[in-house]
C-alpha cells in the first residue's frame, strides 16, 4: 500500500475503535469508586493468612503465584531466544577472537566518570538487596530489585572496561544463574507437592508479621526472581554490548 493508503485505512479504523472504546468504557464504574470483589477479599485476608504486609506481593507470589512463575519463564525464554538470535550472528563475525585486549576498549572513560561509577556500585548493590529482601513488607521485590542489582553490575562497565565487566559477569555463569533461578521457582512449586499440598502451596513457616524472614515462601521466590531478572538483564546488556563493541572494532580496522 502507499503511505497515504495505509494512513487512510488506519484513520478509518482508529475512528471506529474510538467509537468502540467510548461505547465500552462508558460501562465502567466511575473512576475511583468501586473496589473489586476479588481485590477486597485479598486485601482483607492477606496479612492474616500470609503474614505479608505487602498485599501486592502476596497476590503476585502466592495467591496468583502461577502467573508469576509463567512470567518468569517468559523472561527466560526471551533471553534464550535473544542468545540464539545474536549468537548465530556473533559466530559469523568474530573472526579473530584473540587479538583484542586493546581494541576491545569501546570508549575511553574519563577518570571522573570512573570514580563516580565506582562509588555508586556499593550503594546500588546494597539498595538492590534491600529492595529484594523487603519485597513482602514494603514496595519492591524480585523484579525491581533484580534490575537494580543488574544496574550495579552494569556500573562496572560504565566505570571501567568491558573486559572487567566480562570477568565479573561471565556469560556462562549468568546463563547458568538464569536457568537455576527459573528452575528454583518450579522447584518451590514442587516442594509444595512434596510437603503434602498442591503445586505452589506454601511449605515454609509464616513467621512474625513484619520480619524479613516471614510470609513463608514469598521471600524465597523473591530471591529466585531477583536472580533471574538480574542475570537476564546482565545477559541482555552483555549481548547487546558485545554487538556494539564488535561493530566499533570493525569500524576502526
Amino acid at each position, binding site marked *: 500500500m502507499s503511505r497515504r493508503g495505509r494512513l487512510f485505512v*488506519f484513520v478509518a479504523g482508529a475512528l471506529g475503535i474510538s467509537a468502540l472504546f467510548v461505547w465500552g468504557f462508558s460501562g465502567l464504574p466511575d473512576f475511583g469508586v468501586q473496589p473489586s470483589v476479588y481485590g477486597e477479599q485479598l486485601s482483607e485476608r492477606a496479612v492474616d493468612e500470609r503474614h505479608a504486609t*505487602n498485599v501486592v506481593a502476596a*497476590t503476585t507470589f502466592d495467591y496468583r503465584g502461577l502467573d508469576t512463575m509463567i512470567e518468569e519463564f517468559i523472561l527466560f525464554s526471551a533471553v534464550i531466544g535473544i542468545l540464539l538470535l545474536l549468537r548465530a550472528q556473533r559466530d559469523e563475525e568474530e573472526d579473530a577472537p584473540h587479538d583484542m585486549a586493546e581494541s576491545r576498549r569501546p570508549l575511553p572513560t574519563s577518570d571522573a566518570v570512573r570514580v563516580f561509577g565506582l562509588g555508586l556500585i556499593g550503594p546500588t548493590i546494597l539498595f538492590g538487596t534491600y529492595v529484594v529482601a523487603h519485597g513482602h513488607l514494603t514496595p519492591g521485590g524480585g523484579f525491581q530489585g533484580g534490575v537494580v542489582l543488574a544496574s550495579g553490575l552494569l556500573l562496572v562497565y560504565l566505570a571501567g572496561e568491558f573486559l572487567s565487566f566480562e570477568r565479573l559477569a561471565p556469560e556462562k555463569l549468568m546463563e547458568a544463574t538464569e536457568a537455576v533461578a527459573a528452575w528454583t521457582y518450579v522447584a518451590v512449586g514442587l516442594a509444595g507437592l512434596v510437603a503434602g499440598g498442591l503445586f505452589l502451596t506454601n511449605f515454609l513457616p509464616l513467621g512474625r508479621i513484619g520480619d524479613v524472614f516471614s510470609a513463608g515462601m514469598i521471600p524465597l521466590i523473591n530471591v529466585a526472581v531477583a536472580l533471574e531478572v538480574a542475570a537476564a538483564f546482565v545477559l541482555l546488556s552483555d549481548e547487546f554490548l558485545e554487538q556494539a563493541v564488535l561493530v566499533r572494532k570493525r569500524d576502526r580496522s
Partner: protein
Amino acid sequence: MTVLPYVVAAWLFLIGLYGIVTSRNLIHLVTCLAVTQSSTYLLLLAIGYQEDATAPIFGDIPMDAEVVDPVVQAMTLTDGVVSVTVSALLLALAVQTHKRAGTLDPNALRALRG
C-alpha cells in the same frame, strides 16, 4: 473529569498504533509498541483505583484501612515485565534484520511479498 484516565488510556493505545503504522524505523516501532502497551497499565490501575484509599501495604496503616485493589497492581506488574521482555526480543530481531538487510526502514523491507 472522572473519565479522564480512560480517555488517556484510549489515547495511548491509538497514538501507539499510529506510530507503528507510520514508522520508518524498526527501533522506533518497538518503542511505539511499548507506548501502546502502557495503555493497558493505565487502564488496569485506573479500574482498581479508589478515591481516598491508600496503597495495599499494611506496614504503617491500620488493618481496617481502605486500600486500593491489589489484584490490578499484580496484573500490571506482570504485564510490565512481559512488555519489556517482548520489547527486548523484538529489538534483537530488529538488530538482526538490520544485519541481513542493511536497513531498518519497513518501506525498504519487502522480501515477503505475496
